[in-house]
């Protein structure tokens, strides 16, 4: 009878206890972690730190705590820019929302050459904002621009468009609406395509007219899609910079200066990095807070498909 030298064949085949290789996945997240820390977290932590310092390029840096934030409270130009940003954002959301929804309804019906027209309609969205801004600047020119010529054709007097403090923001919103209405149209069109047909059939049997069908069936059902459009447009409009900067640079005077443009001037033309960082932090908080509110509203507006109560 032979003597067993090992306890079992299975034990001999398995690695020694304690040296068993356990699957580890954490190295895989290192590249992403490095990018997130380097590109997102570090710049933010640094901005936060800079906002607690007084530092102008070429001068000594000095820790001032919350002094930069206190300075914001009495900075009339900052508060004016907040007002401009609010007006600009509201108009830049409402305009594309109305026209985009109308366009989506039109393109959802069986129009002749619908695909071609839809392709043409989305073209402004694909253009470079600075190029658009330059073209619109020429069109807005009070003496040489085509817009005043067009107004004259229908008997309306000339406007000063972006060259007048009173009309500058609505004129800029016109450009924003022209460019971003197609985006809203695409989002709403996707929503319309997903709508069930049964409610419409029932409504038709009940004798509902087209306005009633839109008001009481379509509009509530595309609500979640409209909410997505509102969120995207709001964030976009809040941080809008290129079009305003290229057309008016915040002028005439400071009539179209939003927080974004003011922040740029403070940090990169006055080189007041500390104060500019404080504005950036406040601006960031505003965007995050508004986004959270909108996301909450979006969740509330979502369809409750599984809710049978």
């Amino acid at each position, binding site marked *: 009878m032979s003597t067993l030298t090992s306890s079992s064949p299975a034990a001999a085949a398995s690695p020694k206890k304690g040296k068993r290789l356990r699957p580890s996945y954490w190295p895989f997240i290192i590249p992403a972690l490095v990018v997130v820390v380097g590109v997102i977290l570090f710049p933010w932590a640094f901005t936060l730190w800079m906002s607690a310092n007084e530092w102008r390029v070429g001068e000594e840096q000095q820790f001032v705590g919350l002094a930069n934030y206190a300075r914001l409270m009495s900075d009339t130009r900052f508060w004016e820019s907040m007002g401009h940003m609010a007006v600009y954002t509201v108009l830049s959301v409402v305009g594309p929302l109305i026209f985009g929804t109308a366009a989506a309804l039109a393109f959802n019906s069986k129009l002749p050459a619908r695909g071609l027209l839809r392709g043409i309609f989305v073209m402004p969205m694909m253009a470079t904002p600075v190029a658009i801004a330059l073209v619109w600047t020429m069109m807005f020119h009070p003496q040489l621009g085509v817009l005043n010529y067009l107004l004259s054709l229908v008997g309306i007097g000339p406007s000063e468009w972006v060259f007048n403090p009173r009309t500058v923001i609505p004129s800029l919103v016109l450009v924003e609406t022209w460019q971003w209405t197609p985006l809203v149209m695409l989002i709403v069109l996707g929503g319309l395509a997903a709508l069930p047909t049964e409610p419409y059939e029932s409504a038709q049997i009940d004798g509902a007219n087209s306005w009633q069908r839109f008001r009481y069936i379509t509009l509530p059902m595309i609500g979640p899609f409209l909410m997505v459009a509102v969120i995207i447009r709001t964030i976009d409009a809040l941080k809008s910079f290129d079009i305003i900067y290229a057309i008016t640079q915040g002028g005439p005077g400071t009539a179209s200066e939003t927080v974004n443009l003011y922040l740029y001037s403070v940090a990169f*033309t006055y080189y007041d990095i500390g104060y500019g960082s404080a504005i950036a932090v406040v601006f960031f908080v505003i965007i995050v807070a508004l986004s959270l509110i909108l996301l909450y509203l979006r969740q509330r507006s979502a369809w409750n498909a599984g809710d049978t109560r």
Partner: protein
Amino acid sequence: MFTSDKLRLSRRQVLASGAAASAMSLAGFPAFGQSSQINWKKYAGTKLEVNLIKSPRGETLTKYQKEFEELTGITVVSEQTPEQQQRQKAVIELTSGRPSFDVVHISYHVQKRQFEKGKWFADLTPFVNDPTLTDAGYLSDFAEAGLAFAKSPEGAIGALPFSVDYWIVYWNKELFAKKGLSYPTTFEEMVKAAVALTDPATQTYGFVARGQKNANTPVWTSLMLGYDKYAISGGELQTDTPEAIEAAKLYQTLMTKAAPPGVAGFNWAECQSAFLQGKIGMWFDGVGFAPPLEDPEKSRVVGKVGYGIMPKGPKAQAAATTGDGIGVTAASKNKEAAYLYCQWATNKLMGARLLQAGAGVPFRNSVLADAEVRKGVKMPPEWVDAVAGSAKISRLTLPVIIPVTEFRDTLGVALTNLLSGGDAATELKRATAEFKPILERSEKA
């Protein structure tokens, strides 16, 4: 602080520079690099990085840079960036202490003080005094304004004077003739002519100048010079003095009674477009914007433009002056080679090329006075006369301070408000009070 008063030319200086210029023009221009004792090949093989402002001046340097490379054996890599972005890039890189460039092109009227405080320029004085690097008397041909720009309060030479911009009045001779008017010689006559030329029914306006915030400030400070007042004098803001208020009222009158609608949003480009259409009587701006006016493809006023020296104000006649310089960074490891580039960029031949192309006006008196050079100038002789005449009454447009952009923005907003009916005294006092702490802080830092 650098006081603008230093730049006022005395009659003796004007005569001396004129005499020197005449003597040089009689002798003719030596081809660059041929008559000197300088060993141009000494730094052959060096590679220079040059940071230029994108402008006709920057383009002229890039266009002829091969000549410099052939003369010296130095390789030049030049980059042109639009003005605003170039300034930001330069400041950020210089603050880091390791700029990527050896040579930098600056606007004196915006950046001089900042560069001096940051100690970002190499002092070129030893190179200028070194006979193996510079011909004797090299600086003597530069206009006094250029040398004042180039030197720090301590006397160090930062950027060499490259090009100067005088503010002149472009006027439409045809419109003036229709109304039987002649070119104004005083501010009062200028207002009268501007109002007389204005006829909104035919969309004709007597005057246009920059109304946009920041860009408009030099227009007003230029008018202030006519009241014999600088924006800052002896370290004190003069922007709410009676003279400053009078100049602001003059600006308001011209811009609200004789300028086209929407002028509050006009920068130089919109003013130029309007003038090119032949419906504007006078346009007040820098002399460097002239070339498109005589280009038949762009202009409806070819051959009809008069180039006038700034009319006399109640107390003085002054041509507002800004300028560009080109210098070597203190951090450069190729300072001598970089200095040779700056010297080449500011030589007489390059100055003549700038002038002849209408790309800019050199600070060199001899170039302006040279009959041969003038023959090759594409612009009408009247333009060259306006330049030469302005040189004689040259004064700095803007104060040489670090926060010059904040100065322009803060006072610029006040000026734009005037175009909406604001009161000059109230607006200027508010803007002055707003800017005062910024200036004080900057000077203390």
